[in-house]
């Protein structure tokens, strides 16, 4: 199981190449918003950048909040998204504690699915797709 992380986000230059890649390659759109990773300045441009993306909570509160099963728990953390089941209620957006899910004007929601397609488009290697070591009989991540 893979998980997107941003271990070197302090190197971020704010080019938005990751967001644009996610929108383009995952969602077939040209946009800043329709992406599972979105870059914001961290309290103004003079203080650097932060990446808003799913941290793969386990269990994921957004999946618990989803009333139709469009979001379901992914083994190891994060969610599996079934767009066809989404009724655009936005309950997942409200449930996410870190503002990792965005919702467009039509109500469609966008969350990181940990596919890693953004990683190659970061010029400073801020992003990584990590393996989550799995316990055989549990969806829990093995901790040291």
């Amino acid at each position, binding site marked *: 199981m893979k998980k997107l992380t941003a271990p070197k986000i302090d190197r971020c230059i704010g080019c938005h190449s990751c967001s644009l890649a996610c929108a383009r390659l995952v969602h077939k759109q*040209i946009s800043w918003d329709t992406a599972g990773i979105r870059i914001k300045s961290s309290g103004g441009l*003079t203080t650097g950048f932060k990446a808003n993306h799913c941290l793969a909570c386990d269990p994921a509160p957004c999946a618990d909040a989803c009333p139709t099963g469009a979001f379901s728990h992914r083994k190891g953390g994060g969610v599996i998204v079934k767009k066809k089941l989404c009724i655009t209620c936005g309950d997942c957006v409200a449930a996410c504690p870190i503002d990792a899910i965005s919702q467009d004007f039509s109500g469609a929601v966008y969350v990181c699915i940990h596919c890693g397609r953004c990683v190659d488009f970061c010029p400073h290697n801020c992003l990584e797709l990590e393996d989550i070591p799995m316990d055989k009989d549990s969806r829990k991540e093995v901790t040291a």
Partner: protein
Amino acid sequence: MIRDHFRILVVNLSSGKGQIVHLDGRNTEVGGSGLAALLFQKYGLPEQSWDDPAQPVIFAIGPLTGYFPLMSKTVCSFKSPYHNQYTESHAGGRSALSLCFSNLDALVVVGKSERLCCLSVSSRSLDIKDIDFMRGMDVDETGKLLRGMSKGSGHRTILRIGPAGENGAAMSCINVDTYRHFGRLGGGAALGAKNLKGIIIHGDAIFTMPDNKQYNKLFAEVYKQVTATDMMKKYHNLGTPANLQGLNDIKSLPWRNLQATSDPAIDQINGERFATDTLLRNSACSGCPVGCIHVAYIREMFTENHRYTFKQVAYDYEMIFSLGTMLGVTDTTSVLNILDEMEKAGLDAMSGGVALAWATEATEKGLISAKETVVTLTFGDSDSYQQATEMLGGCSNDFYRLLGQGSLKAAEEYGGKDFACVLGQEMAGYATGEVFFAAQSLGFRHSHLDSGGYSYDQKHSDQDIGGVTDFLINDEAGRAFMTSMVSCLFARGVYTNELLGDCLSSVGYPELATNIDPLGKHIQKLRWQTRVASGFSPDAITIPKRFFKIKTWKGAIDPVYLNNLKKAYGEAIMTLAGNNHD
């Protein structure tokens, strides 16, 4: 936002209302520079003063903005307070993608607000807020307040002006997202004349990706070229300041108001020194993975017991020239401190520095004194320059008000025209020779980026008036197409005509793809026609004597060659614009 026409938002600050306008011309005026000229012809008043409330300030992007790397710039066009003629200024930051994701090809602002205001737009909103309480506020503080008053963090651009723009200084800039600027020729005053302190553009629109398998493949190829090869390395390594040492070595770097073109003290403020001693981090314009913005830090103890202030200032070659070598200031912290004052005042740091250099030499020669300048200006005295910068932006007395209109305006009053380093506007930092002096004097933006004149000088020592004129005209046409995309000109080595054609085809502009050269020429002509209609005459521009007195690697400037070259280039421009009746 791929469409066969332009979608424009025209906002009238007098009425407080906006209008969406659909305009033909995608396959002829393209976008960016071409679109801006088209819009000025539609909304501009070429014969009226720059500060007529009806004059437009135009922000335009291109057909590839948001779709390919480094298509990250915006063209701002307006009637300049500097020369009262049509002009353009270019900037990046988040401005281009914000406009793109506001579903606009251009934003046009006309009219004048009764009180100081801020305009906010997005793909679904338009709002004009009274912010009269910000009158006189510096650029830094204005940015902080506007950030807190608006939504869309990370996905918006915040344009704002400082005291210089509010006070009508012809060398005032429009600050873009703290570290970028529509710097030259007085865009700040163009907004100030409208009582428009800030513009916030929140890019919240979503477009379907081009339905073309080639698009993603091509994007990846371009991305690889700009990140994985050495082609762009010079821009993200030391950045443009790397040129300081090189130009000093070939006796082409202006020092102390161009009284010299080389100085051993360059090793105190060259690109290596800035990077080693002051560089804090790099930053990027949205949509550009190169990250050429070099942000330096200044740490200063402001009281005893180790109480510090900490400031971040973005530097480039041009500012180190204008506030360093041109002012004889040879330590990095001092250069950055003056630059920080320029930023806060909302001044074009290039023009501001060159103007203060003229004032310093005028002081040396006894033409002016502390009676005018309040603080005595001496080459190398950065404390005085910091204070003078605040007064220049604040137009704090008759002298500074006049100097803010341009060095030559002040020289007309106080004397010293011979040593005003003005080539159409305050010079860029290239004392490379006759070709550049003629090229900047008559260039469309009076910018070193209008054409490659400074580069030509460094490669040729022969005198070929016909060849140089052809080079300048042809080179400008190619750049006119690039600035209609609107590409960062740093990418001109990557985006060959072939690659641009492929990119345009892949997103659905096949007609543009197959007509790049003729369209570049058409836009070049359109821009010059617009400029000429607003009063441009090459004969009205003279090159001050200082430029005839210097030595470069080629030896002493040849005055006959320089004058003849300028005359020939001027005639070529007027012929191109269809206005040469000789």
